[in-house]
């Protein structure tokens, strides 16, 4: 969307800082965080250590991309200082603590040889990591939702959308992992993955629907996604590749098709990333000049 310099805050103005250049790396970080948290939680539920490990890697990746989007990454330690008011501060703490707790948990698991009777210490760290995993998955939704200047973002459904997206991504990765490792509860995971994909799609459209009732600027943002210049990304990548095709796979492919399921998971992840990115791209500020 090409806003001329003289239209800045005179017409609806796109949020640029996190959708262009180095700043847009935050979309990757949010995506990785969401999937990391979602994957860890679902892995916890199904006691799938590989899933937990992959989630932990994703979290490291998130940390890396978060640092990359900063212009002063060596000062990043300061981000821990405002959890009282800043969602990024809180999220930073969640990520650090998650990586720490999950790391220790995985280490214990490795050292104890992944027994059926889980070591109590490991249980403790699983719980701690699980709590922070939830934080990691949901906090970026609050980061975006906090911005009351962008009506498209400023609703209670934003954190829900982000955490649901994360869990959906996580579930898809878990499904592929389960197929690879021949996990016993594959069919349950499969059911969960199917459910999440559908629920995720519903939440996306609920969010868009709410946006059309949140003022003309939010409505235009929604329009941008559905029939405007982001429609390509929305319909092809987020919906078709990110949901529809994976749904078909998840309904047809079984535990014996790990490759297809891996492909499906990759597509879900791509759609997930595209979702974060296009939500950031579609966000617009209400003009300061009256119409």
């Amino acid at each position, binding site marked *: 969307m090409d806003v001329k*310099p*003289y239209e*800045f805050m005179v017409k609806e103005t796109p949020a640029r800082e996190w959708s262009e250049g180095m700043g847009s790396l935050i979309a990757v970080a949010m995506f990785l965080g969401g999937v990391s948290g979602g994957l860890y939680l679902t892995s916890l539920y199904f006691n799938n250590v590989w899933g937990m490990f992959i989630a932990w890697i994703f979290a490291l990746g998130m940390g890396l991309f978060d640092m990359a989007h900063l212009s002063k990454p060596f000062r990043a330690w300061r981000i821990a200082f405002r959890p009282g008011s800043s969602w990024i501060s809180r999220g930073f703490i969640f990520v650090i603590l998650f990586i720490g707790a999950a790391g220790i948990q995985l280490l214990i698991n490795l050292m104890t040889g992944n027994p059926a009777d889980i070591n109590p210490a490991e249980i403790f760290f699983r719980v701690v990591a699980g709590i922070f995993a939830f934080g990691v998955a949901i906090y970026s939704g609050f980061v975006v939702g906090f911005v009351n200047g962008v009506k498209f973002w400023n609703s209670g459904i934003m954190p829900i959308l982000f955490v649901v997206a994360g869990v959906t991504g996580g579930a898809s990765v878990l499904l592929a992992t389960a197929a690879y490792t021949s996990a016993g509860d594959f069919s349950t995971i499969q059911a969960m993955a199917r459910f999440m994909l559908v629920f995720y799609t519903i939440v996306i459209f609920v969010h868009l629907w709410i946006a059309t009732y949140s003022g003309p600027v939010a409505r235009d943002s929604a329009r941008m996604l559905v029939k405007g210049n982001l429609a390509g990304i929305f319909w092809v990548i987020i919906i078709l590749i990110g949901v529809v095709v994976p749904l078909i796979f998840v309904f047809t492919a079984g535990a014996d098709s790990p490759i297809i399921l891996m492909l499906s998971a990759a597509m879900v992840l791509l759609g997930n990333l595209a979702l974060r990115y296009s939500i950031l791209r579609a966000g617009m500020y209400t003009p300061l000049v009256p119409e």
Partner: protein
Amino acid sequence: MVVTGMSVKGNPEIKEDVWIRTTCGGCYGTCAIRVHRVNGVIVKIEGEPDNDFGARGGLCAKGEAMIQALYDPNRYNYPLRRTNPEKGLFVDPKWKRISWDEALTEIAERLKKIRKENPNKLLHGGTPSAGSGPDLPLGFGVFGAVFGTKNWYIGGAGLHCGSGSHMGAGLYHASWSIVPDWKYCNYVIQMGSNKGTASGHSMGFNMRLAADARARGAKIVVFDPICNFAGGKATEWIPLLPGSDGIVALSMVNILLNELNVYDVEFIKKKTNGPYLIGPDQLYLRDKATGKPLIWDPVENKAKVFNDPSIKDFAILGNYTVNGVKCSPAFQLVKDHVKQYTPEWAEQESTVPAATIRRIAREYAEAAQVGTTIEIEGEKFPLRPVACIMFRGGQGHTNSAHSYTAMCLLNAIVGAMDVPGGTLGWPAYVGGYPETGRFKVIPYPDSRDGMLTAGTFMEHGPWPVHEPKVPSDMTMKELVPTASFSPQPVTSDFDKYWNKLGRPYEIEMAMIFGANMIRSSQSREITAEFWKKIPFIVTFNILPNEFCEGFADIVLPDCHPLEAYCLFSSHGPFFNHPIGMEGWCFPIRQPVVQPAYERRNKVEVLWELADRIGMREEMNRYYNVYFSSFGGEPLISGDINSARGAAQIDPSKAVTLIKPEEKITYAEMMDRVFKYYFGPNHDLKYFSENGSLQWKKKAKEAYWRWHVDVRIPIYLEHIAEIKPKVMEAAKQAGVELQWEQFTPLISYFKPQIAKEVNDEYDLYSFSYRDILHNGTYTMEMPWLDEVSRMNPYTYNITMNAETAKKKGLKDGDLICLESRRGRKVTGTLKTMQGQHPKTVAIAACSGAWAKGAPIAFGKGSNYNILLESDFDHACPVCWSQETATAVKVYKADRRYEYDGVRR
């Protein structure tokens, strides 16, 4: 260390922290400023707070941006010689650096030769860009007058202001232009004028006072095809077609005189030629003995000379017979004549609804409060809190003279001229500095007809009216004495006339300062043809421009206003001094930093040239006369070469400030002049420290109209007088003008633009001033360029939104404007609600292509490319240019006017 008055981070080493007072060079308003110099570098510019000559501490963006012009790495720093013999719009001059001595030696040689053969072979001129204005009279004006050339060409022939404005303001206010008395005015009508919001005279005091007027609730009605500057601050914006302002004004005059019967009888009787008796030949009835115009005394029932002390009353209506000749007072003729200008006809020409015209006329008449008075400083003055003003836009058409005088008529009939609340000319009456009585300018009545005559040099007399002559110089102004700035010889029809006159001589050399003759003049193609033919062109410039690069043979590096001394802030108080009860101020311009590299003050360069050609003595004598003319007794009035009632100035009347043989510096001259005007204590040192000398203005200076026994012509008898002689002289030159406009009755004539618009070329295109820009150099200043790009209109072409939609055009499209002669200009479209549907507009004078101005390159559009330059497109009476042109608009695939530009 605590540093006040500037934002500082940390603890930097500050070795120098001074504020120097001087005048701004952002435009030719020359507001008083203070400039902050830290460690030898200029860091900030602000308005001078305790000074009425400006915005009392405020300053517009152009002034702040001067810092970047001063330090622009693209500036000319050394004399340059063109080594590429080819000249043209896009030609690379292939500059070679030369020494000052080499440059001046060659220039002096050529000047000497020309002066011996025929000084008219030198064409000189320029425009006050980059604040060069103050050097116009003192530098080039004097140099040319003494050298003996009559070929003086202002870039664009008043294209950027208006010969109608200057002629009219000279005629009615002994001034350069007019402004409402913002302090007391309640009802302002602006017709094609951006006073207070933009204007080349961005003029701090205008911005300040107009804002005060708006804040206290004055009603401001703006007639303008676009709602941008003046329109944007109007209480009521009324769109109209370009060139139709005159008939709107005349229909309002009609309503006041013939429907509402509201007019200031006293003013008409005593301050205009309304009572002068007009005979069947359209001329004054004159007393046989004295040759002075006659009036009718209705009390004693006889005709008398207009200034006869025995007059009991003046008749302004009726028909009389004097010595068998049927006659009427001029006012009767005017009153009858305007009856034809009905609001309905005005609506037809302008698209302003007749009901609106009637309403505005009624509101104006009521607001005028004819007959009321106000007490200021214990003295009673007539109070007429209405003002109608016009500048470039309203009169920039082939009906210029009549449009402007029609608007002046609206002021005159209610007596709202140079009285509290009314229309004020820039100061025409300066009582003099109280301690010395000098620096005095007093208007006076001309000796024959009692008409208002300026008490100082002015381009725009015309009293006494010169005899029309067959032109002997290339400006051809002798042909029409009412002409202000002439487009000749830079036109497409000049050769026709010069051939008919036998081509008495050719221009061999041109000396131009500060101007961009190519971009700020009408039609660069016609202009280029002219300049190409001149064998040797010398320019004095600060920054590179299209004229220097394409056509100059030698470029001399001038000083920026922040590097230079300058005596006057302008040509004189009538040019830009604060109006109304704002205080008097005589500011100094002084260098805040020394000129870097080999830049030199152009006036001192001219003096060195004068030394080399043996002209310095004459110049010194001329300066003595010039300065003495402000010394209390008007020695010179009218144009630079004229004198009051005498062909020669009596040298005994001039004070010798400079001895003939002296070769002083500019600063030295300033010191002497300051002391002469203001006393021995107020020398250069005083001015350097204090920045200016200020003194209180007396009410009778601000509102002088009823303190000087002068009249103004509501009936332009002088035009009837000169007409036959003009026609005869014109025949000899082969000149055909629109003779019907040579009528003494102020009338409406369809402007050339209205005649050229047709179904294919269906839009009236025009340009207008933008507050961010002055001339063509401001786009090179990065700060101004940045904010221009942040403005929706400055660099774009604007059209009414509906019109654009109908043509299938939308915001952001690259469009082309093409004139009937195939001239093209392109730019980015921005649609507006606030624009007349039949128009398309371009702000400022952008569209730069000079290689040496990289910031300005390609930004915005150069409107002037579309215009024509010839007598068909000039007002026949004042020679103002037609500034609007008929165009068709379509989508473009590239910027056509940049084809051929080297990048």
